[in-house]
């Protein structure tokens, strides 16, 4: 589907052109914090990243350090510690695991302001593994199908981890260049800008690549946040853009970002010809 629509693009815009440009943006003082945090039902260290916005593209975000961060499920309170120090990354203990069906509240205290966010952890759901195909031009593989983009009831984030750092012929490469993290989504909405989204960077991987496929169950509010974020990032720059506006949040007191809790199911695959 996607591929075909990209072809439509090529033909439809037979004289179109995209060029790099420079653009002077109005920058405004943004005294707000950005929260990027997710907890799951996996037993591990979970992280909440807190940072400040940046004025320009590719600027490095300044971390929000020294905040007090706790997560509560009404029965217990879990305190997160900033690790490493002054990184703006706050971690739970390694034995923390969310419980499906439980409502979690995030509290962040910073500069005498308390920011809160509530979310419910939905249970994980079993799924079919993704599909991939070989590209005959280079003999490498690429992902063709992960899941349907649309489902009216069950929404999800699909995280795909690819690792071919141990595949013969790639062991000498920088390990980071042989690892990729891709995200796909199943949402309860259909959007024109999604259907006609711009081309996405193609990731190819060799035989023997290890694939970790994770499905995160997400709430409707989380799905709405993702849809809005995609509208402002991956889906913008096509030929059917919708009007731009700020992405919603579930954090109180003017903070931005999102705090989520997800039930996760995982599959492991190895790429075979």
């Amino acid at each position, binding site marked *: *589907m996607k591929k*075909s629509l990209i*072809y*439509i693009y*090529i*033909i*439809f815009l037979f*004289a*179109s*052109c*995209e*060029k*790099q*440009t*420079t*653009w002077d*943006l*109005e*920058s405004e003082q*943004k005294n707000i914090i*950005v929260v*990027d945090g997710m907890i799951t039902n996996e037993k591990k260290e979970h992280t909440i990243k807190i*940072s*400040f*916005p*940046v*004025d*320009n*593209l590719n600027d490095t975000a300044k971390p929000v350090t020294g905040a007090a961060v706790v997560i509560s499920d009404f029965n217990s309170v879990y305190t997160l510690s900033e690790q490493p120090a002054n990184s703006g990354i706050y971690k739970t203990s390694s034995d923390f695991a969310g419980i499906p069906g439980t409502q979690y509240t995030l509290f962040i205290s910073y500069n005498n302001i308390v920011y809160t966010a509530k979310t419910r952890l939905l249970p994980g759901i079993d799924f079919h593994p993704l599909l991939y195909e070989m590209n005959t031009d280079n003999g490498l593989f690429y992902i063709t199908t992960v899941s349907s983009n649309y*489902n*009216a009831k069950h929404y999800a984030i699909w995280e795909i981890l690819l690792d071919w750092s141990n595949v013969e012929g790639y062991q000498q490469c920088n390990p*980071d260049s042989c690892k990729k993290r*891709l*995200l796909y989504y199943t949402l309860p*909405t*259909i959007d*024109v800008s999604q259907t006609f989204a*711009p*081309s*996405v*960077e*193609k990731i190819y991987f060799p035989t023997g690549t290890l694939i970790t496929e994770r499905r995160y169950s997400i709430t409707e509010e989380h799905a709405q946040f993702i849809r*809005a974020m995609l*509208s*402002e*990032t*991956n889906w*913008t*720059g096509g*030929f*059917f*853009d*919708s*009007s*731009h*506006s*700020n*992405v919603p949040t579930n954090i109180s007191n003017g903070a931005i*970002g*999102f705090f989520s809790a997800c039930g996760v199911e995982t599959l492991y695959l190895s790429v075979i010809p």
Partner: protein
Amino acid sequence: MKRSNNLLTYFLKSPILIVITFFAVLFLTIENTHAQDLNQKISVNLKNVTISEVMTKITELTQINFTYSSTQIPLNNKVTIKAKNKTVKEVFEKIFTENGIEYLIIEKQIVLRPLQKESFQNTIASSTNSKEKKKYTISGYLKDSKTGEILIGATVYAKGTIMGTFTNGYGFYSLTLPEGDYDIIYSFIGYTSISHHIDLKENKKISYELEASNFEIKAVEIVADKENEKLVSPLSNMKLNPRAIRQMPGFVGDVDIIKSLQAVPGIKAYGDGSTLFYVRGGNSDQNLILVDEAPIYNPSHFFGFFTAIAPDAIKDVEAYKGDFPASYGGRLSSVIDIKTKDGNMKEAFLSGSMGPFTSNITIEGPFKKDKSSFFFSGRRSNMNWLSSLSGTNMKIIFFDINTKLNYIATENDRFFISFYVGNDLLSRSLSGSKNNYGINWNNVLGTIRWNHIYNKKLFSNTTIYSSKYNYYLYLSKEYSDYWNSSISNGTIKTDFTYYANALNTLKTGIEISSHASNPGNVHFTDSLIQKSTPVIPRYNSREIDIYISNEQTITDKLSVYYGLRLPVWRNIGETSVYYFNSSYEVIDTLLVGDKESYYTASSPEPRINLKYSFSKNSAVKACYSRTTQFIQVLSNSISPFTSLEVWVPCGPNIKPQKSDQFSLGYAKRFYKNNLNFSAEAFYKNCINQIDYEDHANMLYNPLIEGELRFGKSWSYGLELMLRKTEGKFSGWLGYTYSRVFKKIEGVNNNETYPAFYDRPNDITLNFSYNTGKHWLFSANWIYMTGGAITTPIGFYYYDGYNVPLYGDKNNDRLPDYHRLDLLVTLKLNRPGSVKKFQHSCTFTIYNAYARKNPISVDFNKIIDDNGNFVIPSDHDSQNEIIPTKISVAGFIPSISYNFKF
């Protein structure tokens, strides 16, 4: 030197300065050439002297010379004149007009001749006092002499009087005059005028066939006739004939009615390859496009690169921007009334054209000469060679078909049946499979009309029409999983025109419509998925509109049009209606039974315009009109291309949109009536305007009405136009300054913001040079301020995404838009050839200097290994994001071959 160069550069870069200078120079040269002498003040004190002596004195004082025939002018009449510091014009009125002498300014000379026309007072008296003189009516049709096509908007008037009329949309006219001798003038733009002398002693039926004036093509013509002063009109409505449109460069060689209209001041284009347009601050769905009276909901092919109505089928186009007659309603901003050809009543013709992107063929002819005829025009895309270039097995197909039958049953009855279908399909076939993916939309329109002349003064037209628009987005390869939206309507209407007398034309009518719309539902073949998908309620509505209007001539200088339209709208079941609280959460659901009424709205719409003519060559016009719109497109798209559209009616959650528009216009002719200048200022206030919640879910949402936000918009502007319509060299220069703002509750923190189609400065320049033999050269240049866009004031990082952070809505602007299109037509027949076989070649260049006009600027892409701009996939890598701008339609040359035999 450097400074002067800088000034020159600044001047050339400033289109406003150029326009102001142009108009200033024009006024200083043309206006003063003719008027300077008459406005100078003189003092004369002469008692009981001849007119000849007065003229000598005036020549002494002013250097003004007179030309006259001494046998016709009573030079020896004695006059007394005492004028102190009076204008020459006032002196002339005193000595000439009072002595039955008319003066004309021709080539800087004052030409004297006997006053020919009856005084207006006599005219009024004779036309209104039936006891003094009996009145009789001349009525009939005006047609093209070669094709038998009726002529719409042709002028019929009695020479030397103020009494005249136009042919209506069916070529019919009726003119009532007092008994007497008249020279009746029949004229129409692009045709040779006819003068017919009658001794009016009884009612007469006179139909004429006017002869088209050769290959000469005249430019866009405002509804005006230079020979009749009361018809001078400012810019509120525009009339385009197909010959005029044909000389304007279209996209890739295709003549394009919508894009031609976009070159008219006050009608703003979106940009390259788009049929979307915005009239005087109105949204694009506030334009009503009628094809033989039936509305067409999506007039585009191939996302908007082509207009869906084939140019060969068009007979007449009239565009109303503000001065809406009461017979039109349903949209706030404009009415584009397109009439298609009836079919040649004299002989059969085959014509067509072939080009790299489209081909079309037209067949027309009589079933029975001067009694009945047919018309068929079909156009199809030839664009699959593009898919070969791209190496895919994509299909790009669009076509449209116009057919029409017309039959003159009796002297008083005529029937028309017309049908239009337009279809677009963009799909990809998988090898070895019948499966396709793709998009499909289509418009289907059908109209049956009956013209009936009850008597010499009463004309009626009864129309039954139906229109349907369907949009499919195929989601799955089986072609049976799709998203579909649609809108349809069926209407019966009757209009009566009563030509009461020479000074009053009354119109009235009633229209009854049924509307149905599907705001978008998904169909899946998998019954399990289908079960879990929500059903979006459909809408059904009924509408009744009645109107009455009168066009009245009050004095020889003042005329008035006044009318009232009363639409009544009603929504009926079966449907579900959701009610929302102030937080836009559903608080109640009403299940409405079949045919059960649940919402009614009505809004009287007064329309009035006053026109005052200062002279034969200048007039001022003031208009007020209220319009109401009950049905609208819900879309938060800012794309220039028509995409998935959701039409919904007003209802408990959506109040009818209303607009009040005031305009004041001035028109003047110069230079032997060959140059026309018009200026019009307008102010428009609209209420119940729609905008959307941030990231509103518009495509597949049962609660779509909860995504809407309401408020007001207002726009104002000044439109200037200077045009030359006669001769080998014709064209126009138009300039518009206008603004449009919105204030919507819940959007932009409730603060005012400019609409995304707010483009303050707009210049259009159109020139044509017709050698009269083989060649026609034409150029069209458009300039617009860049559209308003929302750009980030910063960014933040979330899970590997660079998420933009916004401040005010539409806080920024795209670069200014400008483009030059060129057209050369080579007529391949010998000059003056009377052969039936006529052929020509048309060469066009769209965007001749390859200006990259961006439609968007984005901050979300990287460059991949192949040098393409793509969205990054790896969320763990540190990508350098690059700002990019996208433009469509670069330099596009095209050639097409046209033939007719």
